[in-house]
């Protein structure tokens, strides 16, 4: 507690442009004006994308209207994996440079990551029953995404399991980095092994095997959910920084009181 209070009360001015956000005070000032525009943009984008995806986009030739589950399922899957990549980067920053802000952001990120992964699994299950004929199978894709969900949950629980906040953050960072091996497994499981889950429709090397009338609303939904994800994590991180500052101020006030009483 004592060390973290000191780091937050007077973080040394770090050199270099990357360290600009490392100082929690500067982070609060910089992001002060971001949260509202980000939330408004997310709400507008999600509203527009939902209308596009649910009413304007055509059904699929063989799956019919059921294909609309994809407009939630796929953004959640991309966010679950992209978010985990973000968690890994925060963990590297935490372990090597001991950024106090990276610890806080990682702590706020993992419950949101667990939530989107759970939504990905739930929507996938709801989609699998009518189309494939089963809620769940233990194929490589589904199993590796379930492992990703447990990694998110494990990180969220582990960083909160220690009385010493910094120790918890370090353990969580190690878990997150060990779990990075699962990311290529999730991504390439459908190519390396045969699975019930179909391979990716949208890749960088070939034309997307998804018609543009379905692809564009999907991308709009992805941007909308991505903005909402960023807004939630940013709000959580800002709240966590402020909470720590309040605690640090209270500690300082208590110490002054103690010093003043003879």
């Amino acid at each position: 507690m004592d060390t973290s209070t000191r780091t937050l009360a007077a973080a040394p001015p770090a050199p270099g442009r990357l360290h600009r956000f490392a100082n929690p005070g500067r982070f609060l000032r910089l992001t002060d004006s971001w949260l509202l525009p980000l939330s408004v943009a997310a709400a507008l984008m999600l509203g527009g994308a939902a209308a596009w995806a649910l009413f304007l986009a055509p059904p699929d030739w063989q799956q019919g209207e059921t294909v609309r589950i994809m407009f939630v399922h796929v953004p959640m899957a991309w966010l679950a994996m992209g978010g985990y990549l973000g968690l890994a980067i925060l963990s590297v920053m935490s372990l090597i440079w001991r950024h106090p802000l990276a610890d806080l952001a990682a702590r706020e990120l993992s419950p949101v990551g667990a939530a989107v992964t759970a939504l990905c699994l739930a929507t996938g299950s709801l989609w699998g029953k009518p189309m494939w004929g089963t809620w769940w199978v233990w194929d490589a894709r589904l199993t590796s995404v379930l492992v990703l969900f447990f990694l998110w949950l494990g990180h969220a629980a582990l960083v909160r399991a220690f009385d010493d906040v910094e120790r918890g953050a370090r353990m969580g960072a190690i878990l997150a980095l060990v779990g990075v091996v699962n990311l290529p497994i999730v991504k390439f499981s459908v190519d390396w092994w045969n699975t019930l889950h179909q391979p990716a429709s949208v890749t960088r090397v070939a034309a997307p095997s998804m018609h543009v009338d379905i692809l564009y609303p999907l991308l709009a939904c992805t941007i909308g959910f991505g903005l909402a994800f960023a807004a939630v994590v940013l709000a959580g991180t800002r709240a966590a920084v402020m909470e720590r500052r309040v605690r640090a101020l209270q500690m300082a006030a208590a110490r002054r009181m103690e010093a003043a009483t003879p």
Partner: protein
Amino acid sequence: MTRKRRRLYVLLLCGIGIGSATALTLTAFQDNLVFFRSPSDIAAERPPEGRAFRLGGLVESGSVERHGAYDGRPAIRFRVTDGQHTVPVVFTGVLPDLFREGQGVVTQGVLGTDGVFRAREVLARHDETYMPPEVADALKRAGHWNPAEGAPPPAAEWNTARPRS
């Protein structure tokens, strides 16, 4: 600075260690990670008698015969193909909506001594193509594609979004 550098190297070393351990494990378990076996796999190596496994492939065009079972449940007979080999399958029960000729299926069951696969479960395995009904109809009308024969033509032929090459 040196402590940071040391932590970076330790982290990189651990990453290489965990990465290669995972790669080795996955390579060792390669055969167990497949969800289903293709008719060619079964022709190459016949699975042990009475052992349940999953058979996957396309429903061969023109092979589907439907008839009622004695207890009133729908019964079906079809062949699963991967282009090289085919395996005849019998199944009694409810099929998924996407089941049709030319569709991918994954069936679980036992291969009989007569070479007929007795499926307990049939799952549909659709491909990664998504298109509106009008586009599918246009492709079929133009003679580019018969869904009963298998996968649609490459996306570059019908999709207007093409990555720059």
